[in-house]
């Protein structure tokens, strides 16, 4: 197995005449945490949507875990091992924590009963606890429904999904955009735990401090193209801002934007 978990070659997405994403070449190593930054409409979310199969790309190649992939939808991507934490939370409010973690992929018994096969609550509870320990999320009562939790707690549960299902790559699209200061800190702590676990991560964020805190490498998008690929140790906030605004363009990306 190579060290590269995800690679895109010339990834392109056009919405009619709008070139939302143009020729993105991107490499993510195993266990690496990479941030994607850029102004609104720079192509960050479009890029993520092509990888997770939410949309179908116009051109280009996506190579995941060593083989080219062509996900028909987000479920395919998840099956392959790409977990996405969406900006809008995909949790069912009236279900509790294990129910939400295992929604759509429940552990079951007596499978010949078809849709009426029995839920293996015990196994799901144990796996949930293991996943929560792995991410450092503490929930004294996992039987509480999501409706009774704060925004930060919900986001923690959404992220804990990734740890429960031995995923190969986690993508977070602005996971803290809607959260308060303390809740943001909680989520950031979980991201650090994931780093220690050796999980690969793509973090889409606008938050400069957060990005410098959490990731190894920063990719900057501008007007649908990648304009910079910066190691955290060799750059600073002002530098990144000048790439985002277009004051600077990375040497290897000259002529791109």
């Amino acid at each position, binding site marked *: 197995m190579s060290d590269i978990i995800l690679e895109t070659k010339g990834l392109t997405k056009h919405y009619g005449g709008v070139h939302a994403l143009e020729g993105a070449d991107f490499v993510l190593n195993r266990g690496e945490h990479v941030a994607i930054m850029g102004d609104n409409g720079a192509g960050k979310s479009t890029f993520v949507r092509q990888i997770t199969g939410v949309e179908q790309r116009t051109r280009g190649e996506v190579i995941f875990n060593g083989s080219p992939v062509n996900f028909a939808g987000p479920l395919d991507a998840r099956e392959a091992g790409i977990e996405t934490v969406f900006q809008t939370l995909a949790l069912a409010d009236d279900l509790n924590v294990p129910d939400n973690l295992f929604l759509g992929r429940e552990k079951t018994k007596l499978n010949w009963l078809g849709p009426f096969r*029995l839920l293996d609550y015990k196994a799901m509870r144990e796996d949930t606890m293991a996943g929560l320990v792995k991410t*450092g999320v*503490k929930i004294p009562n996992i039987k509480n429904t999501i409706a009774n939790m704060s925004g930060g707690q919900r986001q923690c549960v959404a992220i804990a999904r990734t740890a429960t299902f031995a995923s190969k790559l986690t993508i977070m699209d602005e996971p803290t955009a809607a959260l308060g200061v303390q809740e943001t800190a909680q989520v950031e702590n979980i991201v650090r*735990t994931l780093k220690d676990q050796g999980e690969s991560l793509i973090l889409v964020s606008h938050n400069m401090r957060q990005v410098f805190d959490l990731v190894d490498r920063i990719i900057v998008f501008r007007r649908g193209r990648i304009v910079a690929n910066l190691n955290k140790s060799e750059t600073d906030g002002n530098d990144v801002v000048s790439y985002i605004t277009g004051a600077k363009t990375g040497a290897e990306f000259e002529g791109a934007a």
Partner: protein
Amino acid sequence: MSDESQGVGGLTYDKSKRQWPNELNVFGALILIIAIFEILGQVLPYMNGQSLLFDTRDRFDSIFNEQRLRIIIVQVAIIGIIALGVTQVIITAGIDLSSGSVVGATAMIAMSFAQVAEVNGNPNPKAIFGEWALDLPWLIPVLVGLLVGTVAGIINGILVAYSRIPPFIATLGMMLFARGVAQWWSKGNPVSFPTESYAKIGAGMMPVIIFLSLAILFHFIMNYTVYGKHTYAIGSNEQAARMSGINVPRHLVLVYVIAGMLAGLAAVILTSKNLTAQSGMGLTYELEAIAMAVIGGVSLFGGRGSIIGTVIGALIIGVITSGFTYLKLGAYYQEMALGMIIVGAVALDQWQQQRAASRS
């Protein structure tokens, strides 16, 4: 205790947000309503100290007035069976307005396969079909009834899940259509004279036994199977359910089919009990079934509610109906009271929703 608030990125446990099973509230309401009737029985001068549920004249061996208890549960059992299906539909954030009319249509069609050949030595004057459909074993009309209910459920389900027609409209259409079928079937004539074996299905306490057995079965299904979990998930957040890989349209069809089958079964029991089928059968049953579910704490917004709640809701309706008769008050008052209780139950649900939203 202090440990509960520690930990990296911890989810802390707040006791004020601890959950109280909704069924307990509904059960409390049932007890309260019984208590009100008992007190009125003691207080109102013309009642002579009678009791609603307790045996005050030593007519029975137990402390309860068994006769009234039996009436209360028998009169809600058949609509209760429909309510079990309606509960599941409402939990998916849908609604089924067609169940009463499906009962009407199924009653006519199923009964046509349950008729005897001879009445008092003469050929059955109400026979719908020729001799081939007379004196059939009881299982055939039962299967026909389940089939008719299933067909109605499949149509409802496909309209809601695949054609994206709002459940209210789709099942309103089915409500009118099925009532039309019931009237067209025998040009408005009743279908009568069932076989002896068929007449046993709904005789005596059979409706109650069937209702409670099905309630236990569906309580189990809703709580311990994938079907139940996905039903709650779809009603709670349909988009999340879809993103989690649940085949939402297929599941919705299954839910409406189960509701249709239960309506079909209710029709079989009803016709067996009444020994006749009429095109007007099941009128307003859909509303009473919805009322049982709503009073039992099933949220019309989906995602919340339970079979136990609906059973208690059915009992509340039974107690109120019996209670008004016992207080010698006319049926008008009874309907007014039921109307207020239903609106009150939904208002309470709304209020709880808003309180929950403002707390988190």
